[in-house]
């Protein structure tokens, strides 16, 4: 990203002024990370030390702009951090050969990258080297962002812990015995662990927001239609969205501004109704915050999570927000079953293309084409994609279509209408992002339904195509708690403003506690 890009977000002279000011501010005083720490060993020739654990993308852009580091030095610092720590975190499936003059970035492995193997963490795509770039990868490339590598995920983005990766799970930088969440868990772990300044994830029912929450970082699931899905390995096409995973809300806005907007290669995208603004707001005066009880008092929400979110609501009030009463009577209760019909149904169609003929894994030699398909697919797909393909095939099959898929689509209308009603009274809805903090590896792998509940609170707004931001709002049992902010369609600027004001007031330190103590 060329430094002018930072300023280029705001075309006014005042905006350019702010861009410079914020870049230098971020260098020394990123909210929550202002304290000096022992720094990672710096590369020969580096004029300032680079602490990848605390450096924000905006801070890194500032360093580049001031000429304090070169893009090569920045990349070297992150590659050194990956070298030192990825054996523990397994955030990356593979490291690329980063090129570009901007702030380096990591991308989830379902994002197609020309010349860089892209597997969606599935065996069935092992060895697949795309011959084209996804629109988001191409936009990042045009902005000069060097690609550090491809991050681990649940296979085909199906899961909430990265334990469904065919290549082994990622681990949470706050506690390596715990999951980073999923499905964009590798991206979350990379950013939280200082192995990337920022990353792209994808979200179908919570796959950006939930891992961001579990790893103590910021994640945005954009409005459906805001970001191109061209070149994103499809899971559920009416739900999939790509979004930023970052250390701060400002980084999130910056990365969103680089990837959002209409793409002729994805007919579901639209022009943003207004340009992306870098958030500056420090209060919430005049903002009406809805706290729907169905999302905040749902069964299974841990007391420590509820307490941290309640504190954030109180803080919002002290910043001038007005708390209003809103309800989502059926969206939460029926959201999860609705999602687990619609998403698998769409997945069963999207995953039909993996047949061992054009790319990826092919089953053992056989002299019958149908047998080749069936062998390739059973051997190539892991248990969760196979399960969802079966489930989706069933929900779409003759005799069951109306009762399952058709009914779920009608539930989706109810969910959309309930949210529209809520937004007549509120500008933004608050809730926990995840009912729990990061759970232990293996805790939910035996029972698919136990894993599905991880997304209970993120799913309803996804079904309605709404944007959602997760920001860290405190700790419970020493682990990060995520606050979910949901807005109406295309209200990202409002979410960034509210998130930024709260982030400042909260002062959450996104560097995992054990890495602060370790000091190297």
């Amino acid at each position: 990203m060329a430094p002018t890009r930072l300023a280029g977000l705001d075309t006014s002279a005042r905006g350019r002024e702010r861009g410079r000011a914020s870049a230098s501010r971020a260098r020394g005083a990123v909210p929550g990370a202002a304290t000096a720490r022992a720094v990672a060993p710096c590369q020969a020739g580096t004029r300032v030390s680079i602490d990848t654990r605390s450096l924000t993308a905006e801070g890194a852009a500032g360093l580049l702009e001031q000429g304090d580091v070169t893009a090569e030095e920045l990349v070297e610092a992150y590659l050194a951090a990956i070298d030192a720590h990825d054996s523990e975190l397994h955030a990356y499936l593979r490291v690329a050969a980063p090129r570009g003059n901007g702030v380096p970035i990591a991308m989830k492995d379902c994002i197609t990258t020309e010349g860089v193997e892209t597997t969606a963490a599935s065996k069935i795509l092992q060895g697949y080297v795309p011959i084209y770039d996804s629109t988001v990868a191409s936009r990042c490339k045009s902005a000069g962002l060097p690609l550090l590598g491809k991050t681990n995920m649940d296979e085909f983005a199906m899961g909430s812990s990265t334990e469904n990766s065919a290549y082994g799970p990622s681990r949470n930088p706050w506690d390596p015995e715990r999951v980073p969440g999923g499905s964009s868990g590798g991206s979350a772990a990379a950013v939280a662990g200082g192995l990337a300044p920022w990353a792209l994830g994808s979200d179908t029912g919570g796959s950006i927001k939930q891992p961001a929450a579990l790893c103590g970082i910021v994640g945005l699931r954009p409005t459906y239609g805001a970001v191109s899905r061209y070149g994103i390995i499809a899971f559920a096409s009416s739900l999939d969205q790509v979004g930023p995973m970052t250390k701060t809300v400002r980084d999130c806005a910056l990365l969103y501004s680089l990837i959002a907007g209409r793409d002729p290669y994805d007919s579901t995208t639209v022009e943003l109704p207004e340009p992306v603004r870098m958030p500056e707001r420090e209060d919430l005066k005049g903002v009406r915050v809805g706290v729907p009880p169905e999302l905040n008092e749902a069964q299974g929400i841990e007391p420590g999570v509820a307490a941290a979110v309640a504190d954030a609501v109180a803080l919002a009030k002290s910043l001038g927000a007005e708390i209003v009463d809103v309800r989502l009577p059926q969206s939460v209760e029926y959201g999860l079953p609705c999602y687990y019909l619609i998403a698998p149904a769409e997945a069963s169609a999207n995953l039909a293309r993996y047949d061992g003929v054009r790319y990826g894994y092919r089953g053992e030699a056989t002299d019958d084409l149908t047998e080749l398909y069936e062998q390739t697919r059973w051997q190539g797909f892991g248990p969760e994609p196979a399960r969802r393909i079966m489930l989706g095939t069933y929900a779409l099959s003759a005799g069951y279509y109306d009762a399952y898929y058709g009914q779920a689509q009608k539930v989706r209308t109810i969910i959309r209408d309930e949210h529209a009603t809520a937004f007549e009274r509120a500008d933004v809805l608050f809730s926990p992002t995840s009912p729990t903090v990061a759970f232990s590896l293996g805790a939910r792998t035996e029972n698919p339904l136990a894993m599905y509940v991880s997304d209970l609170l993120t799913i309803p707004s996804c079904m309605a195509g709404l944007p959602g931001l997760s920001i860290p709002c405190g700790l419970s049992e020493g682990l990060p708690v995520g606050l979910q902010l949901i807005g109406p369609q295309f209200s990202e600027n409002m979410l960034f403003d509210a998130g930024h004001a709260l982030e400042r007031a909260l002062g959450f330190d996104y560097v995992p506690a054990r890495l602060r103590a370790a000091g190297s």
Partner: protein
Amino acid sequence: MLHLARLARLEIPEAELERVQEQLGAILEAVGKVAELDLADVEPTSHPLYVVNVWDEDNIRPSLSREAALANAPDATDGAFRVPAVG
């Protein structure tokens, strides 16, 4: 169950059929909850945005070369994907 596996083009080994069936049964029971609601008068939503008739410019653009299209094929022969005979 075998019919479903065939529709999904998945060759589930005999030994695993029972386990898969059990898991699917539990999930179907949970998602079957949507049937509780009386939604006879509700229109279905298939897409979260109201976007209709998006047209692409009718221009001639270069397309993939044969070589590029075959680059990732597990088995390519004579400029084509090679597969077993259709049974």
